[in-house]
């Protein structure tokens, strides 16, 4: 059995970040985009915890608590906004967000 090293954790976190970013770019539904964004935030959490563990410095893990808290606030505001938009437009597709053009 292989002992997991820092690079394994960083690979996972890099993969999560890339999947999240890809989702934000490719998907057209606001809710899915928002899920992908959460994935990006959590990939940073994985990296921080791993680095904190291998550096022997707890600052990174404390930072993760801040990130989780902030992400929760962001989700609360973001979902409320998306719901308000849905009530107005009956859609959550990004293509329909084009009322302001030159």
């Amino acid at each position, binding site marked *: 059995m292989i002992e997991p090293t*820092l690079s394994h954790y*960083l690979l996972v*976190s890099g993969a999560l*970040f890339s999947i*999240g*970013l890809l989702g*934000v770019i490719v998907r057209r539904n*606001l809710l899915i*985009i*928002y899920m992908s*964004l959460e994935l*990006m*935030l959590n*990939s*940073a959490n994985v*990296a*921080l915890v791993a*680095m*904190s563990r291998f*550096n022997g*410095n707890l*600052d*990174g893990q*404390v*930072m993760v608590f*801040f*990130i989780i808290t*902030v992400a929760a*606030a*962001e989700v609360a*505001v*973001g979902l409320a*906004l*998306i719901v*308000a*938009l849905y009530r*107005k*437009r009956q859609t959550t597709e990004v293509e329909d*967000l084009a*009322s*302001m053009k*030159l």
Partner: protein
Amino acid sequence: MSEQLKFVQLEMMVVALGLIVLIADLVMPPSKRRLIGHLSAVALGLIFLFSLRDSYVGLINESTDLFFNSRYKIDGLAIFFKRFFILAAIFVLIFAVDFADRIRSGISEYYAFIIFALAGMMFAASANDFSMLFVSIELITVTFYILVSYQRHRLQSLEAGVKYLILGAVSSAFMIYGIALVFGEAGSLKFEDINAKQSELLGSKVFLFGMLFLFAGLAFKISAFPFQVWAPDVYQGAPTPTTAFLSLGSKAAGFVLLIRLLVFTIPDLTREWTVLLIGISAVTILYGNLCALPQRNLKRLLAYSGIANAGYLLMGIVAQSEDGTAAILYYLAGYLFALMTVFLIINLITKEGEGEDISCLENLNKRSPFLAAAMTLAAISLAGIPPLAGFFGKFLLIKSVAVEAFGNTGYFVLLAVAVFGVVISIYYYFGIVRAIFWNHKADDKTPIFVVVPIRFALICCFAGMLYLGLLPNKPMKWVESAAVSLIKTTAE
């Protein structure tokens, strides 16, 4: 411990004020709600006076090592920006009271969110650690998601809010991933530790990659080139007081963090990245100015001019000197007064539901000579024509780069682009002046009534623009002392 809370006294007062506003909303009858906005503007004015006291300014010389473990810094730069943010928030609050009828829902919460965003900006001004940086930036951004989409009955406002939400969240994801990489390489979140290790960190690819991600997150805040796409739509769709606060407060918060990181914490990296920063600055100036040319919507035009201004301000960081930082501070102060005037007047002359088209300025000199004069002065100041504040700010920024220019061709390119940008910008700012004085197609000659608080705010902005432009000696000393204290800490 508790006696050291004095370092955050201003922030505590601001947060308490926000909470009081929320509670007052429950107690006061709806007809008196207008008063809450004015009272909180007055309270912020008192907090501003408080920040001028010697006992507060004297905190610069005391160390926060014991209290916040040096995660929080009070220096000339921080105090300058705290005052800047409070001043901007006072104007925005006066503005918001006038705007209250168009908000329709929960006006007191609107005031409270402005105040909470202000608290975030004030913490950002003192951030000396990545966790502090992240939390204060997010406090600003999350409150701005709400402020931007506050007019829930307007589709444009909601749309702007969602666009800001998605792009803002992407930028904060980049920022924390960058922080994670920097933390992994440096082993610390504190700016001081990173400052101490910077020469060895520069060799690490992971660290450079992390800093690049972090820079992307901050560049989004200031709407610098590859991260500027959100600005026009969000500026146009947001309620006008929010737009004003976004273009002043949020941008200045990005700049105080950039100054602290790039100029103070890792000057070695900034020197290495000179070409990159010159490129971003030059392209931002060109993009903002060229895209502003065909705009007819005033708020959209100001969004593009705001992008161009972010490019000019970046020149001060490229210069990497005391002069450059002082020039950024001076420019921001002048920008505050000019931009606030323009937004206040846009709000006065447009009615709800109508577009903020440039043609609504027609006949303004007949309808209200006072407003026409104020708008003209603000446009002249933004264009950078002497003798107003904007000219002096641009002059200082260009000078700070020119002083460093010998021996580096990149700097000359940047100077050429900056001057070219100023010339382009004169064209569209004078489009505004032309609409006021020489376009008389519309027959609307109804005089515009300006309520006393707005008149007061306009006169303050007016005086500020003239003062910073005509008598620059004293304000120059202020910004230089703010920038000097910064450099002193670098040498430590």
